[in-house]
């Protein structure tokens, strides 16, 4: 893994989007651990957190949602170095304020970017 390579935990419930992001990030040399469920992401985090640089977090998901996941993450001091970048489908989610209060590295709106710029933008938070 070169110095550029980042490990990103991708939490995106929509499978086609998840797949596209994984492809684009890997194309750009990132290591991607992806899941569509927040509960699973917590399990992954539990074991692999020391390697994870960024969590790519979608907000609206079935089961545990992005904010709840973020709250869980923020509860654990071991994860304090992990940067969370929210990539929401909308810029006007009600939870945006809550998210920034809980502490996120970035809050991005998917539609504001093409896939290329978006992945680069996320990677830039590392």
């Amino acid at each position, binding site marked *: 893994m070169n110095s550029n390579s980042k490990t990103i935990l991708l939490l995106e419930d929509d499978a086609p*989007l998840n797949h596209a992001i994984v492809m684009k990030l890997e194309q750009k040399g990132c290591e991607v651990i992806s899941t569509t469920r927040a509960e699973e992401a917590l399990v992954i985090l539990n074991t692999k957190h020391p390697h994870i640089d960024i969590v790519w977090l979608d907000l609206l998901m079935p089961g545990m949602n992005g904010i709840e996941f973020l709250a869980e993450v923020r509860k654990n001091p071991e994860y304090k170095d992990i940067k969370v970048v929210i990539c929401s489908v909308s810029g006007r989610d009600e939870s945006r304020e809550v998210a920034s209060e809980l502490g996120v590295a970035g809050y991005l709106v998917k*539609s504001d970017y093409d896939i290329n710029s978006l992945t680069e933008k996320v990677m830039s938070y590392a």
Partner: protein
Amino acid sequence: MSSILYSIFKFLYSVQMKLRTKATIFWASFLLIVAFVFAYYTQYVVSTSFRDQTTRDMRIFADQSEGAYYAYIRSLKVRVIDWSSDPSLNKIVKNLISTNEGTKERERFAEDFAQYITEKKMPYDETVIIADILDRNGEIIASTRPGRIGTQKKRMDDHRGASSYSEILNSKPSDAFIGGIKYEDGETNEPVMHASALMFSTDGGGIFASVGAVLRIHFANSKQVEDLLWGRLQVADGARSGDAFLSNYKTSEVYLVNSDTFLVTPTRKFQDTKIKNIIDTPPVRACIERGIEIVSEYVDYNGVRVLGVGMCLESEGLVLVVEIATDEVFAPLLKVTRSATLGGVFLLILGVMSIVAFLRSPLKHIDEIIATIKRVIGGDLTATVSVSTKDEIGSLALMLNTMVDVVRTNEDDMRKSRSLIEEKAIILEKDAEEHRKQAKFLDESKTATLNLLKDSWKSKELLEEEGKRLQAILASIGDGLVLIDMNYKLVLVNAKALEIFSMPITDLLGNDLREVIKLYKNKIYLRNEAWPTEEVFLTKEIFTSTIEDNFSITTTARSTEFPVSFSIAALSGRFSGAVIVIRDATKDRELDEAKSGFISVASHQLRTPLTSIRWYSEMLLSEDAGPLNESQKDFMNEIHGGTQRLYQTVDLLLGISRVESGKLKTDKTQIDIEVFTADITKELRSQFDEKSLVLKVIPPDVGPVSVWLDSITLRQVILNLVSNAIRYTNEKGYIEIKWWMNEGEKREVVYMIHDNGIGIPEAQKQRIFSKFFRAENARAQVPDGSGLGLALVKNLVESWGGKVWFESGEGNGTSFFFTVPLFTETGNNETEATQK
């Protein structure tokens, strides 16, 4: 009668009318009743007396007529006896008897008889119509009417006064028998009377010997009998004279009826006795059937109501009837009644007039007394009554005058006393003046003290009243209302607040609000110092929270947190504290959450697949999946472009629905318009350059202008308007952006985006802000617009309390304007309030 009078009296007593009228009615009624009773009595007595008198007269008359009739009968007997003892006749009859039946001799003797009677006897008595000779067997052996010879006497009892024919045969000389009056059919139409006597011959020595035959004479003498009854015929000396009684009465009748109830003498009505008239009236029936004589009133044969008397002539088989029409009998009574009625009416009028005349003076006096009393009541004590009659009214007037005099005297005395008192009062007043002056100082200080007290009492009363009114208002308010002092002690809690807190008032009043209620913001407990009340106490400005502020509370009785919205206003002056109006926002919150839920889900569900399409088309275009030929690239570009437009449309639609549903989430920051505008134009640089458009941004002279707004919202507004300007301006066109302060009624910033583009057609200006509407020339210029941009702009501008409008002419460019109300240094309540 007395009961009628009593009822009238009672009625008059109770009814409201003048005394004069009452007296008149009473007197008239009295007279009327008296007159009625008198008339009735008179009628009864007089009619009875008249009837009795007339009856008596009729009886006397009838008795006289009866007497006359019997006298007449005696005269007829004399005639028969005279005839039966006629020597010539006796000789003829002797010869007749001595010859055998059927011989010529006998016939000749019979003819002799007829001739003798007809020539020697009948001329002297016109009433004799037939004379017969009967033999011992009762057979007619000679007759003035020869046809009768040989016939047997039909009925042997036909001879009244003789029990049988043999009685006649055995009678003594100078006996005669008179039968009743009968109609003898076959012989004559007239009623006929028979007289029979045994034929006697005398030998000259006074010895009578029976010839052995009976002479019977038939009289048709009804006219004669009539005259006899009426008194026109005098039969014997000493008989009644004249017809005074009957001539007095024009309707009087006297006649005879035989036992067959046939009228046998003429009457006033029926002069012709040849016609058989049946008279079947009560006196006739009484005589024939019961042998009694009666007086009665009935309807006679003539149909007239009569008073009649019947006399029974039993031996003759006749009834003598005397009648007078009741009308005539009682004619004098009618006269009496008529004059009595006339007299009564006259008496009535006279009586009423006399009572009116009598009452006239006393009533006038009473009226005068009443008028005087009225004047006295009205205060005129000089009023007197001038009535001086020597009766009760006079006394009343005198007493009234005396009474008024007494009152007047008292009044005068009082007036005198009053003036005395007044004089004394003046003296006292002068004395008092001195005392007053001395007391004035004391008074003034006392008054001042009292005034102070009064003021406080008045205020207390006013306060109590206000308090009551306030209580009523508070009770009727639909929101909870709480009044606290500066130490948060609860002073007042209305019913709705009790309901919200679910607590009894006793647990609230006097307690610290913060001990009873725990306040949370965003579910985080607020310490005492963090209560917004503190800020309100300091600034005296009203604090208002809405559902978005996410306040919630728990109370000692409601331990589950529930959302509230409230406002706090400081109270200053006599009472320092705050009024808190609070509302349970549980329902609002649920609705709010439902709306948010829908929009975020819709937003997510629409955008996610679009993002997917977009990214994959981008990846294909980047040839991540291998190289594409030119037409594949073109196709992919079309897909990508379409997706982008759909994305924008969805964004706009969601934007509009957010604003419309009040779910627009805003995060206000201070924005320097010049910097903000520069960022946007920079972003759009490439598009300006693409069409070689000239852009001019003109900031105001006054220097930087800042607004307190949500940057995303403002960006969407400016971006949409500038994008439109670019889109609808031809190449090498001109776009100008300008803003300035408007210091009108409302301080605001006006922002303008002007272009010299295609403009808006006049006919379509009205609909330019409608959703999905696009002007025709705009559609021609840019076919793929959504028609949602301006609708969103309008919604957003209005969401912060601004206005948006435009000036345009087709082909002459367009200027869009919007306003932003200005903020204050300490924060922008105005904008903040309107943006929520």
